[in-house]
């Protein structure tokens, strides 16, 4: 099993550009999450989804959008990138709230 796969691994954006961070999981997990981690800091929840067609905001949703058209995919969209969005983005999934989170390898994004 591949688990949680994120692409790209690295990306540099100019201010104002847009991009989509891809996340896919092959474990048939209903719950999927997007976190961002600033250097030396903890993880902050951006958006999450409890199943296809259902998404909700986390702690820091401003500047981002998500969609969940299938169980497997949970892309994160950045519109009008800003330097404050420079971070490492992790996608994660889990089976139930009592289960462990499975993380992807992350996308390191720099906005200049």
């Amino acid at each position, binding site marked *: 099993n591949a688990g949680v796969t994120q692409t790209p691994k690295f990306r540099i954006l100019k201010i104002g550009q847009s991009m989509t961070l891809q996340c896919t999981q092959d474990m048939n997990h209903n719950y999927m999450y997007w976190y961002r981690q600033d250097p030396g800091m903890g993880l902050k929840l951006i958006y999450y989804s409890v199943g296809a067609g259902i998404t909700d905001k986390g702690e820091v949703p401003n500047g981002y959008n998500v969609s969940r058209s299938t169980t497997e995919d949970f892309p994160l969209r950045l519109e009008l990138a800003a330097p404050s969005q420079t971070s490492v983005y992790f996608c994660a999934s889990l089976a139930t*709230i009592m289960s462990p989170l499975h*993380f992807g*390898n992350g996308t390191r994004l720099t906005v200049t």
Partner: protein
Amino acid sequence: GQQVMQIPQYQHVQEGEDFTTYCNSSTTLSNIQWYKQRPGGHPVFLIQLVKSGEVKKQKRLTFQFGEAKKNSSLHITATQTTDVGTYFCAGPVTGGGNKLTFGTGTQLKVEL
């Protein structure tokens, strides 16, 4: 809102010394999970504690869940260089469905 704090923020030890990180929640937790993140890597699940006062061991690692289920600790006996990384606790958001709040993390460095 719910806060999960960890102390210390950083810890440098000599190889062979013990290490402990403490996790404190502002609200009672139904369960708590611990994750380890190696430098440049993604968080990896270590263990979950559910019962009040529960103690679990994994080789040199001992995990405890407080009686009031508001705090937890991770103790490493005789640290090794392979223990280097950041340790996070995480607990369900009160009334937050399937969201996990991550602690602020403790970064461990082990010197030879």
